[in-house]
């Protein structure tokens, strides 16, 4: 078994045994799902809108080179600058260079998954700059020296008690002598601490939910307002975004905004949706950044184009597939060991980070299909995960034991009569063991299953045998 796989299993075992994590995940579970359902029930046009969103993305992806050119031209017209990065390393080097050359010391950041993908914070900190995450969830995980565990709720794995301790440890030296433990107090303290950072910041870095070709705007969607204070107050604004974020026009933006917030948090629209289109000089403004930079990141995206994984580039990072995933809701985001967790992460990570280090992600899935059903841009996530599994099997990247038992199973299902004979005995035994209570609490050699759930008692005969018997009765 390869190291990545061993590590993954270790992390999953730790996650399942972590009471605080299980408490936090148990609390969060269902809230997002319920809110989304309510929001969609109140919006009859939702499904029509998701079809439109998918079609816009497909159209843009088929013409991505042209849309990027139009977008770039518009940003330049607006007085901004565009930088292109083929890899994560290139992207973080570009941003680091911009920050260093401008003599920046303090940098505030809005929540950005692509900045996590390119390891931006480490790069900037290595150059001696202070980087402050300003989204409350991101700020919490930054204090804990962790990575986000959810793409829209980075600190979903943290309990209030853990946050309270973290704040006390980090804020006490700043003069906050009392330990805060109520939600309101925690939020107020973060507000108070971060306000000063916003004003003192030299450079603000954000991601982008969308880039609009028509106007050259970068769009950010937040509920806290942190992304805006990050964008507006410092003298330089840097937007880091994947190349797939571009959309044609403002009307297209409206289609996405209508599905994004409903899918993510069950809101009709997030509290703040902001369009930023360049530095102050070009607009004869006395406020806003003096310099506006956009760093466009490929990092594996262009190679997904035209491949069987192209539909993954439609993803708008709403997080709905995480919220609905049976596996994610139990193991949490960190167990995946990748920046993007859950169904979308299990598809995306091997594509940007290679299959070799990420073999288990595609297998941490029950293929129940829920993520496909709720995806607002109709990404066939289970199919893509199955593609990954096939590739891993072909390239012999999965553990030997798995492939061995799989080969036996394939041998059997191709020989139905033999399959019947081989399975009749274990089914009969399991039925004898469990027929009183209807469930089996322990199966030798299969406690991986029975430790965390009961095994349903099978009926005394195989389905096929029962079917034949029923058909005989029917025909008679």
């Amino acid at each position, binding site marked *: 078994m390869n190291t990545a796989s061993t590590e993954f299993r270790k992390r999953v075992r730790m996650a399942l045994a972590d009471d605080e994590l299980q408490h936090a995940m148990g*609390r*969060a579970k269902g809230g997002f799902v319920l809110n989304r359902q309510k929001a969609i029930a109140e*919006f009859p*046009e939702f499904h029509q809108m998701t079809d439109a969103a998918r079609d816009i993305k497909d159209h843009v992806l088929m*013409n*991505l*080179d*042209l*849309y*990027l050119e139009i977008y770039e031209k518009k940003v330049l017209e607006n007085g901004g600058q565009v930088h*292109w990065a*083929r890899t994560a390393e*290139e992207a973080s080097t570009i941003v680091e260079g911009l920050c260093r050359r401008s003599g920046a010391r303090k940098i505030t950041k809005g929540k950005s998954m692509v900045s996590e993908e390119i390891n931006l914070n480490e790069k900037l900190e290595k150059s001696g700059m202070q980087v402050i995450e300003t989204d*409350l969830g991101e700020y919490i995980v930054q204090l804990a020296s962790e990575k986000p565990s959810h793409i829209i*709720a980075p*600190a979903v794995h943290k309990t*209030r008690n853990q*946050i309270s301790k973290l704040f006390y440890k980090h804020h006490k030296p700043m003069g906050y002598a009392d330990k805060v433990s109520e*939600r309101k107090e925690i*939020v107020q303290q973060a*507000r108070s601490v*971060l*306000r*000063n950072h*916003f004003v003192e910041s030299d450079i603000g870095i954000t991601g982008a939910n969308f880039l609009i070709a028509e*106007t050259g*705007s970068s769009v950010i969607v937040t*509920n*806290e*307002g*942190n992304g*805006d*204070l990050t964008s*507006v*107050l410092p003298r330089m604004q840097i937007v880091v975004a994947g*190349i797939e974020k571009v959309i*044609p*026009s403002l009307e*297209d933006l*409206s289609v996405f905004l*209508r599905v994004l917030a409903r899918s993510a*948090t069950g809101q*009709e*629209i997030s*509290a*703040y*949706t*902001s*369009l*930023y*289109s360049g*530095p*102050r000089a*070009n607009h004869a*403004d006395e*406020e*806003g950044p003096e310099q506006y930079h956009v760093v466009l990141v*490929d990092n594996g995206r*262009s190679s997904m184009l*035209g491949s069987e994984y192209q539909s993954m580039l439609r993803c708008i990072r709403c997080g709905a597939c995480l919220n609905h995933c049976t596996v994610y809701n139990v193991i949490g985001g960190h167990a995946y060991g990748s920046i993007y967790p859950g169904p979308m992460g299990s598809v995306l990570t091997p594509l940007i980070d290679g299959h070799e280090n990420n073999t288990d992600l595609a297998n941490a899935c029950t293929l129940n299909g829920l993520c496909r059903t709720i995806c607002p841009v109709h990404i066939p996530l289970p199919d893509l995960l199955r593609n990954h599994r096939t590739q891993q099997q072909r390239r012999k990247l999965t553990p030997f034991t798995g492939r061995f038992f799989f080969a036996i199973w394939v041998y059997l299902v191709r020989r139905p009569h033999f399959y019947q004979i081989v399975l009749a005995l274990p089914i009969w035994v399991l039925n004898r063991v469990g027929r009183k209570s209807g469930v089996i609490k322990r199966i030798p050699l299969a406690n991986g299953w029975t430790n965390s759930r009961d095994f349903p008692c099978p009926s005394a005969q195989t389905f096929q045998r029962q079917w034949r018997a029923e058909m005989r009765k029917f025909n008679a």
Partner: protein
Amino acid sequence: MLDARSSLFAALRVALTGGEQRSALARSAIEDRVHTTRLSARPGTNMDLVDQYCNKHIAVHGTVNRIAGFHNVVAATEEYCSQQQLGKDLVVGSGAILDKVMWPPEWSANKRPANVSDKIVLSEAYAGISETGTMVFIPKSRSPASQIFLGTHHIVVLDSSLIVACQEDLWRIIRTDHEVFPRAVNLVTGPSKTGDVEQTIEYGAHGPERVHLILVDV
């Protein structure tokens, strides 16, 4: 070696056209797509636009006071401030309505950008979107973004005739009003909030804790 831009575009063209350059025709088709307004399905409503706007605004934790004429702005502001026990020291933005308001001497109405310690900010919205109860701001020198994001209480004055049905109507108005698309457009729907502690909503994360709308029938 190709620079990053050229090699990135080369990779895109390999994937999309087998490496061929795009024709002028393909180019202009996409240019047209960008600059042609295409309307997709829009949420329908049978309600009066202003009524729906107020309902939606209240649903996202906002409060509303509808008044007749700009000369009632001071009284409406006073009503809110005394309800909330806020005093009479506020930052005031600019706009068609606010520029006409005369503040009596007991008010300290400061026409400047807001800072981190300002409690009350009064500013004027550019438009409203009925679909979601959204307030639209186009920050400029005299109505800076700090006024939207830094106050604890954000009181917003809006001319009720500037409420449009949906986002698409807003984009149309902005295009008509501005030769060059504005540097910043902020759509604000309710007060600032976060669910990052135990997935439970708390208001006043970084932006205003409360948003109070003074809707003016001009």
